[in-house]
């Protein structure tokens, strides 16, 4: 079978996806990126191939996206993660969309029209406020395992109000709330709210909303909170952390389709 693979080398995690010609996901993998992008990409691809039960010779195209996309010799072409997330979101939800991707180091808002063309996108500024790195930093400060945040926020009966933009200022605010005796769950919910606010400040939202990325994959409650905040349904693709890898694999598949 002629397969396509996509590899998304993010600053924090490297993801790979192997698709069949119809765009169905056969295998996927998520690894820590570390310092060797080429190695991380190759390992992720091996794992995804193993999961798909496929051999490397079956791949007709391997495309890469993400922060380390230019450092992967085994990929024949690269696209930005913006193109990749848009392609994946539209593949699962073919209609006019706003894609919100919350990544480890940056956030993106991408607008796609009903034909799947990108109209506009925004990336967060240099600052890490509102990204996965922000939540990681806060988990560290609160001495919490990262995985426990979602359930803590979900249990919260109250929500701590955090107003600052900057990560360091937010940390100070959090310390203040701890002194005032705020429960941990309320603090975590407040942090989630802060992520949502940072994202919604970036751009307006139009059409259906799709959220992608690792942070959403690990914190589904964030999606629920976003839906509440927006007062509308928020969609997520299956395996949202693989969205970039799936998207760039879809682009690879398309560009290797025989011309009609």
């Amino acid at each position: 079978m002629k397969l396509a693979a996509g590899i998304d080398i993010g600053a924090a995690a490297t993801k790979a996806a192997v698709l069949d010609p119809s765009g169905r996901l056969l295998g996927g993998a998520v690894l820590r990126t570390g310092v060797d992008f080429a190695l991380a990409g190759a390992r992720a691809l091996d794992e995804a191939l193993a999961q798909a039960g496929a051999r490397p010779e079956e791949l007709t195209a391997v495309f890469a996206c993400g922060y380390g996309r230019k450092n992967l010799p085994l990929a024949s072409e690269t696209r930005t993660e913006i193109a990749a997330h848009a392609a994946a979101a539209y593949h699962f939800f073919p209609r006019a969309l706003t894609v919100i991707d919350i990544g480890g180091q940056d956030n993106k808002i991408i607008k796609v029209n009903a034909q799947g063309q990108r109209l506009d996108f925004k990336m967060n500024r240099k600052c890490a406020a509102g990204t996965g790195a922000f939540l990681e930093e806060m988990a560290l400060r609160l001495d919490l395992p990262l995985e426990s945040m979602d359930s803590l926020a979900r249990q919260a009966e109250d929500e701590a109000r955090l107003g600052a933009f900057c990560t360091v200022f937010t940390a100070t605010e959090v310390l203040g709330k701890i002194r005032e005796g705020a429960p941990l769950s309320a603090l975590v919910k407040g942090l989630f709210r802060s992520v949502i606010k940072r994202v919604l400040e970036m751009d307006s939202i139009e059409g259906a909303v799709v959220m992608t990325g690792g942070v959403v994959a690990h914190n589904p409650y964030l999606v629920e909170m976003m839906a509440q905040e927006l007062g509308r349904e928020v969609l997520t693709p299956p395996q949202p952390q693989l969205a970039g890898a799936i998207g760039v694999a879809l682009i690879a598949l398309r560009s290797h389709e025989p011309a009609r």
Partner: protein
Amino acid sequence: MPDAPPPIKATKKMKELMAGHFLGLDQAAREGRPKVAWCTSVGPAELLHAMGFAVYYPENHGALLGATRMATEVIPTANAAGYSPDICSYLTADVGAFLKGVTPLTQAYGIATVPKADVLVFNTNQCRDVEDWFAFYARHWNVPIVGVRSHRGLGEVKSHHVADVVAQFKDLIPTLERVSGNKFDLDRLRETVRLSKECTLRWRRVLELASRTPSPMTFFDHTIHMAPAVVLRGLPEAVEYYDLLLAEMDQRIADGVAAVPGERHRLYWEGMPVWGRLRMLSDLLSEAKAAVVASTYCNSWIFDAFDERDPFESMARAYLELFIVRDDEYKERYIHQWVERFGVKGVIFHDAKTCPNNSNNRYAMPQRLARNLGLSTLVLNGDLNDLRLFSDEQAKTNLEAFVEQMEELAA
């Protein structure tokens, strides 16, 4: 990939002119003759030349600090002296370099220090920072500072605005006479205004050549070749230089030489250059086959109004009609015209953290241009000089994604 275009030959001449400019200023400052006037980039240079000053432009020095990436090293010194990292990074780079006793002129021309001013002359048509900047040196050297406090945010330039600026120009004369030791001579002013106009006409033509497809030059070339229009306007050398450059560019057009080989996309750059990353940005866009063919910034040295028959009034008009002095409605119309004439489909707004005056994205202009003109727009966060405010990776991904998007929309 098609070959990169051959280097522009006129560059050699320009380097000679710039060396002559700085060495002349250095000599004037050391010998005390002619007197040195510092002038803001769109200040009354014609008047200063007519009064016999050697004219020095600190913003040009600021850009050199940026381009050599010395800026990021010296800005913290100015920050520590009380000049906020949030204000003009030309100012903070220039003052920081001065406090540290360094200048890129040493490496380039063997010049020890910037030329000491005998008088500092500003025009706030571009921003207030220039006055604060010059005031630092006025205090330091105890020399006079004079200038024009301009109207800003203008829709139409009205006769009362012009009359006011004319009166302010005339008010400068007694100080300029005293410092230079020369009497004001209207005929000499007419001559420098005439020369500035000749320079402007040619610079405009250089910029307009980029309306050709493929374009023989890009914004990145313009940022280099604009130097004579900035620092030598009002002098015959600038006029001669652009004749040389135009002849070479006409030949490029005749030979079908493209500044961006295989040009596929045409862009407009709105805002300041990122001086320390010109090469990176130019290479990146060139690789993506995107040519930045027009920019507000390089157009800022087109002064259509100059007219030697009416030197004061036409100068006042020229310095009030500039893009930076106008309201948003005018700015949008202006961009619209250039975008149409140049076949541009995308506009990059550089949001320079330390220069709100040249960051026109901050009041939703990109959104309006996208909606009203169907253009793709991108906001690139960065700065003119302070590379602490610029992320290479983010810029690369943003620009690449922007060109990808234009490609998708064109398909």
